[in-house]
């Protein structure tokens, strides 16, 4: 069986690179490299060495201008040809939290119309005006082409931690195409004890339109989400593991799916 090579792209302010690398190793990736973006800009390394490009969580460039914006521009201006080649070779891209903001602001997500990299959405300040850090319930969209959420349980429980997590769309047309194309892979939902259904605050932590938590492109190979699956990859990460017992960690599914798919690329 082929192996999977995973790149965790680092930049100033990224702080979830090591736990994301750990999650991919747990999921069986043969090679996982956290590498600084300058190595690629300066030509010392190449994206072509890898099967999966991961933009992990953090506060790239301090999120000084807005979440992920400066890193998104840097990638667009200095690495876009390499990124387009990477996508064209059928490889995977995953953005978690700040990485999701980067992918959206690069125009790689949701990309509901083929061609061009126009920004169709944004990830904006939470309606609460606060940094929201807690565990959330998510429902998988079974009709989504998303590679990363295949065959996962219908609902999963993982943490979220952000101040800018509210997904907003450029137009109603984008909203319609998101729905018809199955781009919304994950949504926030109310927990079972309050009846399930579409999430409202605090179960939707940010006020995202249609309770969107994660989006993929039309191919399902580019995926971004605001919650942090890498923070639930061991049973003891669960906040109630001592009372409810050890369970299969929900976050691990996403990394296993990526590794399994990547093994088939080469």
């Amino acid at each position, binding site marked *: 069986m082929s192996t999977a090579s995973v790149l965790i792209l680092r930049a100033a302010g990224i702080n979830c690179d090591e736990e994301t690398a750990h999650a991919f190793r747990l999921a069986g990736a043969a090679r996982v490299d956290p590498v600084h973006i300058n190595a690629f800009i300066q030509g010392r390394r190449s994206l072509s060495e890898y099967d999966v490009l991961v933009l992990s969580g953090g506060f790239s460039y301090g999120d000084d201008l807005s979440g992920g*914006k400066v890193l998104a521009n840097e990638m667009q201006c200095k690495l876009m040809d390499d990124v387009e080649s990477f996508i064209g070779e059928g490889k995977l891209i995953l953005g978690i939290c700040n990485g999701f903001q980067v992918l959206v602001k690069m125009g790689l997500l949701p990309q509901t119309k083929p061609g061009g990299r126009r920004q169709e959405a*944004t990830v904006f300040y939470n309606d609460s005006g606060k940094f929201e850090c807690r565990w959330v319930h998510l429902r998988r969209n079974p009709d989504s082409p998303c590679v990363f959420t295949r065959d996962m349980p219908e609902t999963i429980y993982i943490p979220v931690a952000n101040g800018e997590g509210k997904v907003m769309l450029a137009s109603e047309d984008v909203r319609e195409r998101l729905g018809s194309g199955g781009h919304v892979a994950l949504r926030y939902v109310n927990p079972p004890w309050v009846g399930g259904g579409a999430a409202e605050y605090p179960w939707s932590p940010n006020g995202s339109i249609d309770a969107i938590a994660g989006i993929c492109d039309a191919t399902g190979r580019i995926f971004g989400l605001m919650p942090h699956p890498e923070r639930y990859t061991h049973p003891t990460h669960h906040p109630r593991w001592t009372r409810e017992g050890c369970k299969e960690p929900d976050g691990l599914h996403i990394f296993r799916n990526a590794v399994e798919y990547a093994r088939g690329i080469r």
Partner: protein
Amino acid sequence: MAADSKTWRIAVVNKADVVDAVGEGLRGDILDLGINGIERVRHVRLYALRGALSSDELDRITTGLLADPVTQDHLEMAAEGLPAVPGEWGVEVWFRRGVTDAVGETALKGSRDLGVAGIESVETGRGYILAGQLVRSQIDTICRRLLANDVIERYACYEGGK
């Protein structure tokens, strides 16, 4: 021919239908000061861009870096300052000379990433448009106790339409 070096003052504000969580939070803080005449606060991000920039380069920085295309508008500020109308007060808060402006440094890096070589410096500030039944002494109280840190920042306030 290269453009002359000058300073552009840019204001970035949320579009009308977008929640202004910072402004709403500040309104509550002003009420906590006992100033009950406050009705609405709009938060504005301010940038002073200095350099020899063409109009195309200025547009590239404002639309491609400083303002979010989905949720925010930007405008070049006139000499009279923020677009406060009668019944509103405009407040600008900027760093004092010599204070490190880390966000400005990031904006400078981001501008250069966009290929704008003529950019020389970026200063950042915060703007507020306060609406309500307010008098000058209350605005000063709000500025001194909430909006500006006098050790590192200076502020200017003015009544809209005057």
